[in-house]
Each structure stands twice: as structure tokens, then as C-alpha cells.
């Protein structure tokens, strides 16, 4: 049961990499703050001295939000553009850091910013190219899923459809297949990243071929590992929403809900790290076998 062993090693490694974990969380927080602060400014200038904002403390206040959108909408496009820019930057930053994360995990060393930084910058351009390729592949996958959905539902023109239930039945068929393919593509992408670090080749073709070879020979082990990762992630999501719904909306729960949300972000980052580390461990085990 190598996949399960690798998965357990992933969790073990997580707690040995608390600094990296915290660093990633801080980065996420600071990037988000760049957009959240102008939103705070907008609310401050529009409503800080209005009683209406406090009336909305205990509920989802659509009237207040619609007044903000309708009467103070000049700032909204600026904030939206800023959000898009920050997300793009965060994507690049994540590509940069993923090199460091996998490098540290691959070396099996104790976390150090030296190794982390070295891995990040050394593999950045290769990871960037790889990410672009895989963004294209993911886009094609989404397009393919959409096309299949259209075929299975008998077309999306409502006037051509026999019944709206075909939208649901097509979704029930296409969604699981898409999810499975998405996981497989993600699996391949991650293992190529590991192979890049292992082989340290400048060109991507060799690591890609090598990784595909490894995957082909151990496909079900890797798939099992990734399914395990996904199932645990779904469990975390479900648990989070369950807990979140226990808190009523009130002035007393603003801070607890925020803390809960931050804990969940920490969990999401943890799951990402566990995923990387477990993939590295299984990859190493399989390469050794070969």
C-alpha cells in the first residue's frame, strides 16, 4: 500500500514544514489584503457614519449591498481590475513557490529558506512554461467537457430541449468524468514538476517523457494517491461548511467566522503541501522500484 504510506508521509512532512506552511499562508493573506484594503476604504467612505451598516450586522443585508452597488459603483470596476491583477500576480507567485516547495520536499531536508529560495528561482521559468502548457490543457479539458455536456443534454438551446431534466442527467455523467480527467491531468503535471527537479534538465521534453513513463507504469498507484487527496479535501470542505453554518450571522460571530475561515485557508494550504509531499514520496518509491 505505497500510496497510503506516501500519503501518511505527506502529513508527517507537513508538521516538519510549519515555517513553509505559515509562509505560504502569510503570502496568501498579504496578497488578499492588497485588494481587501480598497474595499474597506470604499465601505468606510460610503457607510462608516451610517446607521445602515450596523443594521446589516445581523443578517445578509441585500438592501445595504445593493445601495453600495448602485450608489457607489464608481469604485467597483477599479477594485475588480485590481482583483484580477492580484490574482494573476498570485498565480505567478504560486508557480515560483511551487518550485521551492517540491525542491525542499524532494531533498527531504529540514526546511530552510535557502533551499526554498533556491528551488523557487532555479525552476521558475521551467515551471512557468509547464504551467502555461497545462493551463492550455485544462482549458481544452473544460472545453471538451462543455462540448460533451452539450451533446449529452441534447444541445443547450432551450427551444430544442425535450426536458430540463436532460441538463441534470448530462451533468451527472459529465461532471464525474471531468473531475477524474482533471485529477489525472493534475497528477501528470505534478509528477512532471517532480521529474524536472530530479533530472534538472533545461528542456522540458525529457522530464515530460520520463514522468509519463513513470506514470504509465504506476498509473493506479498514483491515481489512488490523488483520489485519496481529493477525498480528504472534500471531507475538509464539507466539515468547514458544516461548522460555518453553525454560526448565526451576528455582530458576535464576525470574528469567529473570520478565524474559522483563516483556519480553513490554512487547511487548504496544508492539503496542497501534503499532496506535493505524498506525490514526491510515491514518485521516489516508484523510481527506485524501476
Amino acid at each position, binding site marked *: 500500500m505505497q500510496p497510503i504510506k506516501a500519503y501518511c508521509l505527506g502529513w508527517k512532512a507537513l508538521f516538519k514544514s510549519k515555517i513553509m506552511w505559515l509562509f505560504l499562508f502569510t503570502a496568501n493573506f498579504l496578497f488578499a489584503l492588497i485588494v*481587501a484594503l480598497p474595499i474597506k476604504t470604499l465601505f468606510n467612505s460610503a457607510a462608516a457614519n451610517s446607521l445602515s451598516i450596523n443594521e446589516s450586522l445581523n443578517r445578509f443585508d441585500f438592501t445595504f449591498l445593493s445601495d453600495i452597488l448602485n450608489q457607489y459603483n464608481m469604485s467597483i470596476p477599479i477594485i475588480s481590475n485590481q482583483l484580477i491583477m492580484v490574482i494573476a500576480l498570485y498565480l505567478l507567485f504560486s508557480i515560483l513557490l511551487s518550485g521551492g516547495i517540491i525542491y525542499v520536499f524532494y531533498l527531504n531536508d529540514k526546511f530552510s529558506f535557502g533551499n526554498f529560495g533556491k528551488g523557487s528561482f532555479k525552476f521558475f521559468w521551467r515551471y512557468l512554461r509547464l*504551467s502555461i502548457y497545462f493551463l492550455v490543457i485544462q482549458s481544452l479539458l473544460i472545453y471538451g467537457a462543455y462540448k460533451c455536456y452539450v451533446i449529452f443534454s441534447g444541445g443547450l438551446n432551450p427551444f430544442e430541449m425535450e426536458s430540463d431534466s436532460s441538463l441534470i442527467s448530462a451533468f451527472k455523467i459529465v461532471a464525474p468524468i471531468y473531475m477524474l480527467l482533471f485529477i489525472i491531468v493534475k497528477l501528470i503535471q505534478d509528477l512532471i514538476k517532480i521529474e524536472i527537479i530530479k533530472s534538472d534538465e533545461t528542456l522540458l521534453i525529457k522530464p515530460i517523457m520520463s514522468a509519463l513513463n513513470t506514470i504509465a507504469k504506476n498509473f493506479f498507484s498514483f491515481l489512488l494517491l490523488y483520489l485519496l487527496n481529493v477525498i480528504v479535501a472534500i471531507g475538509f470542505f464539507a466539515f468547514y461548511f458544516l461548522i460555518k453554518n453553525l454560526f448565526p450571522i451576528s455582530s458576535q460571530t464576525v470574528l469567529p467566522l473570520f478565524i474559522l475561515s483563516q483556519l480553513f*485557508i490554512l487547511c487548504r494550504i496544508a492539503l496542497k503541501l501534503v499532496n506535493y509531499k505524498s506525490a514526491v514520496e510515491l514518485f521516489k518509491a516508484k523510481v527506485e522500484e524501476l
Partner: protein
Amino acid sequence: MKFRLYIIFYFYVLLLSYQAKAEQLSARIANYDINVRLDVESKMLYGHTVLNWNNPSADVVEDLQFHMYYNAFKNSESTFMKERGIFDGILGNANDNDCRWSYTTIISMEDEYGNQLVNNMKYIQPDDGNIDDQTVLQVQLANPVEAFGSVTVEFTWEAKVPNIMPRTGYNKDYYFMVQWFPKVGVYEAEGTRGRERGGWSCHQYHSSGEYYGEFGVYQVAITLPSNYVVGASGELVHQAKEADEQTWVFHVDDVIDFGWTASPHFIVQEDQYKDTKIKYYTYPSKTHFSERYFRTIKNALAYMEEHVGPYPYSTLCIIDPPIHGIFSGAMEYPTFVSTTSFCFLPTGIKMPETLATHEFVHQYFMQMISTHEQDEPWMDEGMTTYWESRILDHFDGENSSTIDWLGIKVGNKEFNRWEYFGDKNYKIAEGSRKAREFNHGGYGSIAYNKTAMWLNTLEGIVGQDCMSAIWKSYFNRWKFKHPGGQDFIDVVNETVSKYHQKKFGENMNWFFAQVLYGTEECDYTIDEIDNNEILPKIGYLNNTEDCIAMPDENPNNAETKTYRSKVVVKRLGDMQLPIEVQINFEDGKQINESWSGFERSTEFSYTGTNKIISAEIDPEHKIDIDKNFINNSYTTAPQTKGIQKYFLRALSFIQHTMETVAFLI
């Protein structure tokens, strides 16, 4: 010919005998006996109509005018199509084998004296002179109808059913047959809706605004293949099967129109509210909505009965069309309404409830109180939207009656307000404008949303008791008649003066001049709160020799300080409404002030030992039409908790979004 007249007479006597059984609610001006056969292969209707029309005026009427609605879809040159524009998605492409266009034509017509009238017909275009438009047919009578007299005409007609046109037509084997038969217009006697002279109100079919009909009795026999299930206005009085066809006979009294629908796939579910049978027609994928519809309609029936007047009909059909029949969703016809839903809609998305309530309320506003939707759409759609909010907010909560899903809660009234102020055209026209004259947008937001908002505002100003009396009085006076806008205003003026005497002036015309006949915007704001400490008088006070200095016992050090405080209120919009202002002091004391709202600004000043900490205009949100509730209040201390809530939520949301996107790489 005589034989045919005997037949007509026989049916007419039958009709009259049926009528005698039921209490007559309306003047029954236009009474129809229609036999129609639907050929589902050719999509043709073959009809035979006996129309008995009573002249409601002291005029001698020399012609009849008919709506020929299906000619709106005859070609691209009709007024309807020119106004709406050719919509690609709905019309398909040139390679379609079936021509999607439709038409209706009268083949023969004879009056009770045996006069053939088919050569006395011509299409007229009373609204725009578009000679290509054939939606109004004028028939010159050989024997004019005397004052308060009547005429009976018998005519055969045929129509091709349109494929997927707005509101009506067929798609696959689903048929939604509304505005489907040659229908006589409304002859308005002098004085009706302010008319100076009697005459026909029979407008061309326009893109916006559908209804204006005359009250009457309908007996409709529909023949079609026997595997079809038919739902229609009124009661099913007879059903007969012959070979592979079936005839369904429906009867309904005191209505202004007749609609029906047919499909082999309909599943019919039934419920009852007092004497009214509620029937729900839908396709198998949507039968699970029945409980939602029945609950909603029963709530609406009870609410309207209590607050406006009873629903007098014995049936109400709710049609939830299949997805390929979505073009026919959300429509209203007498005792027959359609909604829209999708089988996967969660309970918290209350689209079925909203549409069912809205379309049901139309039974009152445009049906029983038969207003002219083309000329005065606010009396139809606006009043209906107002009642839709009242009913849904009452039963499903004012903050959750439209959406209550995944923590998102939206009430109907607040959604309506968002729709209005979210429309870039919300000030483009006055609310009294004719439907066909909203040439540059704003029809929906002004006719529907704005009217509902100013009706809410009127309720806020005059109070709930007075408003209830207005609605009851309006309904009782105008049910089964044709009121115009001024008739409603008259009822408001009478009732308000009864409840409030001259509190709001001689009448409420000043209100309607702004909200209905004007385009003014309402926006009041608390501009500032000032608390100035009162200091002893110092300086050269009595003469120029003794300069009085600040006493040693500086009042600033005293335990009790005195303040001169003021609240400045401004009118930012041009609309002038009486407003209430609530002023709160630091010791918890509240003072309620009133202001006429006429001037651009005013202030309320106080002297005392407590500072003003906040002030709020219209604390009970009675002035629904105020465009910005946020600036209606002001607090001297920033409301940090509220800011914190939205800031932290936004921060978490952005964090999660970034992490989700990063997962892709």
C-alpha cells in the same frame, strides 16, 4: 342560411341559460361562442365564432374593430416586429423547413340580419400608420348598432400558429394558445378613462403592453387529437371523444379574454381553496413543484381576499411550461396563468413562487379591474408588482421572500428596489407614459418597479389603514369596469381626505405629479451633526473698556457641559416628500421631527447637556422610493463593527479565490 341562424340562436339561448345560473359580475359586453379545431400537423386553427356584442354607450356604433394578434408575427414589417427587432435566437435560420411566421384571417362574416360583411373589412393602423401592420381589423357594419343596442355576428376564421413567438405559439407538441382568436376591441363610452367622446380602443399589437379587453362570457369548444391534455380559462363543462379526436368545452363568465394550452405530456395536479379549484399543469420533470405552487397560490388568494376583494371564479390554472415552451412562461390570462421554473431549482430560489404570485395578482389588476396596459401600464404591472411584494414578503419574510439560499437572503421588495435603481434608464420617462412610447428603455423599471415603490411610499405616507381603505374602495368601485389613472387618483384623494383631512394639502395630486407624471428623484440625506459646547460670553461685551476674560472656573472643567447641537438635513433629489427625522442623544433620548421636505435643506437645533449621537431620516423606511438609504442616517462615531464585517468577509473571499485559482497551476 336560415338554418345557420337557427343554430346560432340555439347556442345563444344555451349560453344565456348558462349565464342565468351564475351571478352576473360584469356588463358582459362581448360574449363569445367559439368552436375551434387545432390541426397539429399543419399547425392551423380553424375557427367558427359567434360574437354577441352590446354597445355600452349612447353612441350609434357603425363598425366593429377586432384584434388580429397573430398577424403581429406575419412578417418582419409588422409594428410588433419593428419595435422588438428580429430576434435571431428565436427565429432560427433560413434552412428551417417550417415557416415560423403566423397569420390570422377572417374568411366569412355575417350579421344577424344576414348581411355578408367580409367585403366591409379593412386593416387599420390607429397608432402608427404602418400599412404593413395587420393587427387591427375594422368591419363596417351594414346595420349600425343603436345606443345600448347589440349585434350578433358569426364568422369563420383560420390562423396559423406561430412557432416560438413571444408569449404564444407552439414548440414541439406543446401549444400555448393566447391572443389566438379574432377578438373585438373595447368600445369606450364617453367619460370612460377620461374620454371626451366615445370610440374604439383597439390598438395595434405592440412589443410592450398586451392587454385591454372587454368583459363577457366565453364558451369555447376546442377539438384536437385525443392524446392531448387541455388546460384553459374557466371550467371544463363538457368533453367528448370521437374517433381519434377529442373536443373540450370550456365556459367562463365575466372575463376579458380566454387562453388555453395543450400537450400530450401534461400532468395535471389539483388542489382547492374554498370554492376555487386550482389546477397545476406541467411536464413530468416538474411535478415536484406542485406543493410550492399550491401553497403560494392559496396564500395569495387568502391575502388578496382579505386586503382587496374576493376572487370570484371557480377555477385557476397554473401552467409551468416545459423548457422548450419557455417563451410562454410568466403570462397572465383570466383564470389561467403561466410561470417558469427549472426542475433543478432549489427551494431557496423562489422564482416559481414569485412568478405565480405576480401572475395571479393580475387576475385583479388588468382582469377584474380591467385597465389598459398599453396606455397605462403602471396600473397593470406596477400595481401587480406592489401586491406581489406585499404577499411574498408577508408569507416568506421581508428579507428572504425572493432568495433564501446558501446564506444569501433577498426579499421581494428589496429586490424590486435594486432592479429599479440598478437600471441605467430609471429616470428616462415619467411613469404615466404609454407602454409603446418607452422607445429608449426603462419600461420594466418604470412601469413595474417604480410604481411598486411609489405605492409603498404612498402607504408609508398615508399609513396602512388608509392604504387598505384605498385598495378596497378602488376595487369595489372599479371591479369589472375600465378605470383610468385619474380614477385611481380620485379614490386616493377621497380616501386620504377622509382619513387625514387636509394634513397633506387639498389633495394628493402633488404626490402623483412627482412620482407618476414626473421623473424626479428622491434622495434625502443627513448632512452633518454638530455639537458645540456653550461657553461663557467673553470679550468686549458691554463696552470697549472691559475685556471679559474666560473665568477661572472654566466650564470645560465642569462636570456638566451644555451644548448647542444641530442636525442638518438636505434634499439632494428634486422630489419633495414629507419626511420624518429621528434624532438620538447620548443619554438615550429620542426626538422625532417632521419636515415638509420642500426646501433644499433644513436644520433641527437643540440646547442641552447631551450631545446628539445620531440622526436618521425615515427610520421606518416608509419612503421606499428614496434612492440611497445609506445616506439617510449619520452617526458621530464611525460604525467600525459593520465595516469590519464587510472587510473581513471580503478578505476571506479573496483569499479563497486566490487559493482556488492557484490550484490550477
